[in-house]
């Protein structure tokens, strides 16, 4: 794939307020690094993630989208992440069915105490997306910076 000069991937991470978002904070206060091009969007629970949000992130230039929520069994609202798990499984499968690389989407469970896991996950995901290159299949041409 022809790569633009100085291209860096844009990654959108939807993080649950009760765990991963705090996990990202912990990563920061523990001085663990994660790529600057990971844009975190806080959501009240992983099950708040409407499939439309994932598509909209891709539309507006995301090259990879990751959802981080509480470990199964630890949901602040008891069961939200179980629903999210099913939804994302089906959504990711559908994107794959339409020919969108399955490695561009991911779900990881990261608790508030797992700053190290947050950092490692983001670094790994950013590396994967960098290897895959720019997302051209699910972007909106009008949103590309000229």
């Amino acid at each position, binding site marked *: 794939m022809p790569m633009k000069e100085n291209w860096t991937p844009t990654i959108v991470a939807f993080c649950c307020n009760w765990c991963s978002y705090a996990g990202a904070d912990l990563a920061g206060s523990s001085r663990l690094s994660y790529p600057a091009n990971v844009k975190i969007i806080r959501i009240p629970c992983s099950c708040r993630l409407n499939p439309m949000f994932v598509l909209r992130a891709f539309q507006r230039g995301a090259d990879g989208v990751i959802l981080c929520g509480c470990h199964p069994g630890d949901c602040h609202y008891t069961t939200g992440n179980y629903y999210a798990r099913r939804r994302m499984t089906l959504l990711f499968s559908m*994107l794959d*069915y339409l020919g969108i690389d399955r490695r561009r989407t991911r779900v990881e469970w990261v608790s508030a105490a797992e700053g190290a896991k947050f950092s490692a996950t983001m670094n790994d995901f950013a590396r994967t997306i960098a290897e895959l290159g720019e997302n051209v299949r699910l972007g909106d041409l009008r949103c590309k910076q000229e």
Partner: protein
Amino acid sequence: MIERARELLASGEVNRVLAWEKGENDFDRTPAVFTADNVDSLVYDGLCGPNLSKYLVGEMEKEGKILVFLKPCDSYSYNQLATEHRIDLEKVVPIAVGCRGKIDVEKLRAKGIKGILSVTEDGDKLLVKTLYGDAVVENRKEVLLDKCLACKGKEHVVECEVIGESEDTTEGDKFGIVAKLEAMTPDERFAFWRGELSKCIRCNACRNVCPACSCVKCVFDNPNTGVANKAAADDFEENMFHIIRAFHVAGRCTDCGECSRVCPQHIPLHLLNRKFIKDINEIYGGYQAGAEIGQRHPLENFDKGDCEPSVVHVRGGARK
């Protein structure tokens, strides 16, 4: 059927009847609501493809009971709508009608038969009168609607009076084409879906006909959502509309096949819905939406031992 409808109307048990009538062409069939005055123009034959269940939603505001005729596959939609409380069972009298598969006039046209004036059934044969002479189709199975090739069987899932015999018209594995697509490479799949979806004219027929798409206001029609798209101004918007449309009915879609029947561009939209059904069956266990009233569908349910979304990385489907 007309007899029975007339009886029920006369006895006052129902005050109107939801069924099909003949359209302007001899072979056109249009859903219609009849009263005692015009019930004689009710038609039921091999051309009555449209699923009537969704029209019941609009009929619920009216007084009195309505009689509805349900083909076996329509009875699933009926149950699903009842499960979602979109129809009030107290206000409907369902009668199941037999079905041997419905004829797709477009498939007759695809066979090169032009200027069709009328289609008459004679056992398994179809006699087609056209502007350019008559034609005969030896076996009606050659020209059945796509949805009939994935028939859910001859049983009605609504317990009610049954008129007529049904036939299971399934041909091959209903998930066959989905599996074939899964086996393609991502590039091939991408090319296939771009080719199909780029034909979309965003007429919304697939959405409006769908018995599962019964939102009062669709997110795509509401300018306040920021995602309303009246026309697909970009490839992305075609993808988004069709992914969200299919996702929103995932778990509730009975696979009635109306979306593909009505598409003016013949986009095989049911292949998106069926992909979700296949995934649900394989990952969360077999499930048929509308099989009975009151079912909890797989997306409003969970199991603590469910697999992780990363299962997508290891399940079937070509990788390179």
